[in-house]
């Protein structure tokens, strides 16, 4: 008998008696006989707790990549997570709760998400934020749909320097035949070509979508893009990296209308890609066009402060086919991870994280540029935490050599050349690891040149 099922065969008989039947099979009456399985499912198990622990131990040991020093980024980053974050996530009160449908017994989740919304709004420089989306990419896709809904227009200009995986997700989400996505080219400095953007903008454009910093880690100048978007009565949608925001001008200050992003960097482990969390913030006037859950502050019958899910008439369970999105479950627990993480870091701590990412990645880039044959892919543009760099050997060979030395060196950028890599250094990479990277890279490049 499963340890999760409490009723023994004796209790089962008692339950059946109350139901008024003798045999369980009577409950299957409504299922046509021909569809009832007459054989057991072919599944392994049942496994004991100990057996399961051993099996997962074996699987975990087969993940050799888990032990490598990680310099890969491209949308998922190896940041430090304070122990207190997971202790809070493992509170039964949070992780075994459902969506806060009964607000009076869900104030913990509701207030935490309200605090999350506040932190996201402040980081991005926007007026409001929602309760979370699946991930940064789907948040970007939903932002495009939201921009089209708000403006009544059907064309979105997407920066060519947007994470290519995110672009794929946006294409998946925008299926209406009248929608159009056009890519904006970037210049030799890796930043969006403002003149080209201006040439492409025009009637019918609902939004300009730009990543900040972009896929190559480069910091775009948002203000001219905001001005351009607004002159065409379009919205500026910014896909922002939250860890960069304590250092960079906030998208809100630069004129963004919607800001989305990936929250994995703030207290969520890499876990081979998920679960992560997307955030979405916007100007207050767009709140009613937002997808997903939104938490609002209100009062109870005695005038005490409390929190509820609000503006629900946008959502699928009320509006059905006219809803702003089909999203139902979101990433509440991951949003909680962000909230606890940012609370622990606080104002100074998060700024320090941001600053260390900046300086460590610059130190690494400088070291690598000292290797003969290594060069920048883009010249002279400020970057944050990751950078595109070209090695004089193929990315495959470079990857193989570095992995042998216990280093996951980055993500190949095949579209930018055979030896191009996107390399990331977070606050977790100390000087000895950065120096070891440069040393090993020099060795591989020397071997490649000879």
């Amino acid at each position: 008998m499963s340890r999760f099922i409490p009723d023994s065969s004796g209790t089962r008989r008692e339950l059946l008696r109350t139901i008024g039947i003798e045999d369980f099979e009577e409950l299957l009456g409504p299922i046509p006989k021909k569809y009832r399985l007459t054989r057991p499912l072919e599944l392994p198990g049942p496994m004991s707790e100990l057996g399961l622990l051993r099996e997962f131990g074996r699987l975990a040991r087969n993940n050799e990549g888990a032990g490598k020093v990680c310099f890969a980024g491209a949308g998922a980053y190896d940041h430090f997570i304070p122990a207190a974050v997971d202790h809070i996530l493992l509170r039964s009160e949070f992780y075994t709760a459902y969506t806060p449908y009964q607000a009076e017994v869900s104030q913990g989740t509701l207030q935490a998400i309200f605090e999350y919304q506040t932190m996201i709004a402040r980081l991005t420089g926007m007026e409001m934020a929602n309760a979370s989306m699946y991930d940064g990419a789907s948040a970007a896709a939903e932002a495009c749909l939201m921009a089209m809904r708000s403006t009544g227009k059907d064309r979105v200009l997407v920066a060519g320097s947007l994470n290519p995986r995110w672009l794929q997700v946006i294409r998946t989400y925008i299926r209406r035949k009248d929608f159009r996505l056009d890519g904006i080219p970037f210049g030799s400095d890796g930043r969006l070509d403002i003149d080209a953007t201006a040439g492409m903008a025009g009637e019918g454009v609902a939004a300009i979508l730009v990543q900040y910093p972009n896929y190559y880690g480069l910091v775009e100048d948002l203000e001219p893009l905001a001005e351009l978007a607004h002159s065409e009565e379009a919205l500026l949608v910014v896909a922002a990296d939250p860890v960069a925001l304590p250092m960079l001008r906030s998208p809100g200050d630069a004129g963004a209308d919607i800001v989305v992003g990936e929250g994995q960097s703030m207290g969520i482990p890499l876990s081979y890609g998920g679960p992560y969390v997307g955030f979405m913030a916007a100007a207050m006037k767009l709140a009613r066009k937002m997808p997903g859950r939104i938490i609002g502050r209100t009062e109870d019958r005695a005038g005490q402060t409390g929190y509820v899910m609000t503006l629900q008439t946008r959502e699928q369970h009320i509006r059905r086919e006219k809803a702003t999105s089909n999203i139902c479950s979101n990433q509440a627990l991951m949003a909680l991870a962000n909230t606890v993480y940012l609370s622990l870091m606080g104002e100074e701590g998060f700024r320090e994280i941001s600053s260390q990412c900046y300086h460590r990645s610059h130190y690494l880039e400088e070291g690598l540029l000292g290797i003969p044959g290594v060069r920048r892919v883009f010249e002279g543009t400020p970057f944050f935490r990751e950078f595109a760099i070209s090695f004089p050997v193929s990315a495959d060979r470079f990857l193989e050599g570095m992995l042998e030395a216990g280093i996951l060196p980055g993500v190949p950028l095949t579209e930018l050349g055979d030896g191009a890599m996107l390399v990331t250094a977070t606050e977790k990479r100390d000087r000895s690891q950065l120096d070891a990277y440069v040393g090993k890279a020099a060795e591989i490049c020397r071997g490649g040149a000879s």
Partner: protein
Amino acid sequence: MKSIFGFCSRGRTGVSLPALDVPRSEGIPEGLSREDDGNVGLPRASEGQVVRHFVNLSTRNYHVDKGMYPLGSCTMKYNPKLHENLARMEGMASVHPLCPDDQVQGTLEMMHHLGELLCEITGFSGVTLQPAAGAQGEYCGILLIKSYHESRGESHRNEVLMPDSAHGTNPATSTLADCVVVGVESNAQGLVDPEDLRRKAGPNTAAFMLTNPNTLGLFESHIEELTAIVHGAGGLNYMDGANMNALLGIARPGDMGFDVCHLNLHKTFSTPHGGGGPGSGPVACSAELAPFLPEPVVRKDSRGVYRLHRERDPFGRLLAFHGHIGVLLKAYAYILTMGAEGLREASEAALINANYLKARLSEYFDNPFDNGPCMHEFVLSGERQAAKGVKTLDIAKRLLDYGLHAPTVYFPLIVHEALMIEPTDTEGIEELDRFADAMISIAREAEEKPHLVTDAPVNTPVLRLDEVKAVKDLCLVEPREGGDGA
């Protein structure tokens, strides 16, 4: 409770970070640097203050480790503790998603095997583990169906048929997929009316979306006829697997004429709901549709190495990476722990528990669709109580005073004053009786002392909250000290 932003003493922090051990480089140029210069507006609190804040918040939540959570169609079953540890193992949690395949063989093996197990459970032959939640699974399923029609030169098929009892995500998904929703009526027994389906299925039918058992907790007993009608019209059948907890090892969607279904791992397969997510919504499908599944999928190559297989791009990706791996790990652990026998036992217990509660409560509440046994859930109506001025919402709130969570209320829409009750397999007779006794007691209160119910809740951290005020005086973020509103 006091806000976390109330902690704001300068110099306080909840972390200790290593000092910067590399030289500082030139900073961000002026025009691009943060305008408020280190004053984002984050809290300033010590580690202990932060922990205490969130622990105090947590005590204001109801949760399934505290008591029964009878939300219909939500399958709030117990979340095994070991599984939390397994998903957090260093070897699992610290792998970068863009690691080369040979560096992540353990996780890829898990994904490959889990896919096979889900196929066996559903009776299908293809699966994607990518969808983030049920609604994204639905979207994936409808795109799969559209891709199939397009491949046959039938891209004009854009109607999605669904009963009026469907979950709200079904119509919302169809709109997102650029389809038109066509409602199909339910008959007096609460089942899809085959005649109406026959009238509505036609040359434009892309898909028929059906939850089975349906949202009344009834098995669509003429399912053979329904799926045949749709196939006859050239459409495909999609099963919303939200209620799969009724069918494990008992019946399989793939055997009863469905072509695609999604599963909610955070319901049927015991992964925690986290206060609203993360979920996971894998999609399984027939061999005919499998070629249209979104990539990457995990394959085992001739040398026994697991690979993320990328070949085609049928309709793109749904997430930036490969799905909610942490959730998949827990569902995999659940299936291995239960085995075939355990999964069947779970569904049997879910059915028995629901029928037991139905038997105990039928005398006290209206049951508009009581035509024999229910499956894993059932829907009562509070109309009898509403006639005395006690609404279903009041009953739900009063249950909170009894230390229980309320059922799903006002859904499905075809039942007035609906109370949709799903006890799940992991509740024992003691907790079932506690719930039944509370419901019966509330039914009595509605007769004798209705104000006790209409004034509820009174034993909760806050009293009934004003949702109208929340919309009218919209406050979505903590106002900033010194007040710039944002």
